[in-house]
């Protein structure tokens, strides 16, 4: 178990960033090249590469150079897309409840 700890820390840090969670979700739907990712997240190649490197170090993503294209896929841990999805879900839900709170404040007294 102990040998997992550094990796868990890395995974945790990797998952703390919304773009990286987005990348994991995207890869959950299928492998993608760095430039695919750059296009779907509207980021520079350099920016995406940085994120991919963090994910790779955490063991959440593996990459492979095929010709001039760097292909990314989830792994080696199979279930990380789900973890990312749950983490993302949690964040969405919290934001949604923030939004509900703001809505209720905003509309106070204006309903019949």
């Amino acid at each position, binding site marked *: 178990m102990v040998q997992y700890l550094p990796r868990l820390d890395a995974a945790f840090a990797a998952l*703390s960033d919304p773009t990286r969670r987005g990348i994991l979700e995207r890869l959950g739907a299928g492998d993608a090249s760095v430039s695919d990712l750059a296009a779907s997240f509207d980021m520079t190649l350099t920016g995406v590469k940085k994120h991919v490197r963090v994910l790779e170090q955490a063991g959440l993503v593996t990459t492979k150079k095929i010709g001039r294209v760097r292909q990314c896929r989830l792994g080696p841990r199979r279930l990380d897309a789900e973890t990312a999805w749950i983490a993302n879900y949690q*964040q969405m839900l919290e934001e949604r*409840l923030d939004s509900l709170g703001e809505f209720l404040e905003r509309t106070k007294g204006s309903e019949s």
Partner: protein
Amino acid sequence: MSASLKEPAAGVQIGKAGEREIRIERIFNAPRERVWRAFTDPKLVAQWWGRGREMTIERMEVERGGHWRFIVPSPHGPQGFEGRFREVSPPSRIVWTFEWDGMPGYVAVETVVFEELGDGRTRLVTTSLFHTIEERDGALSSGMAEGVADSYAALDRLLATRAAP
């Protein structure tokens, strides 16, 4: 976007009842009837569910077995969310399933409980239970189980940090 709430009509509490459960409690400065309406009237839902983004409610049949489907714009294109109502018990309880188009097959069951606090405020308790594909396929090998434990350990840490003030 997701500005965190500065003044809290909401206390956030994140606990964990099961390995695959996320529980969030909030207290809203509004009577239960209003909170219930905000959740069940599509015209009102459209004003907050999209987290500040203009969303489309394609379907919302608030009754047992009824479908719901919402489209929310995002920087990566429109995102679809959908599910079915499993229970609608006004004004205290809703259970619905929740799926995101981006992760088809990953289903969460959300239970929302509306508790009147008696002072014009309402406590909302949201419990989300995740059903995994692995579970449904019955393919939970021991190696996979380890992976699950690993994943959830990472998730726990993530949630614990978020819960910290």
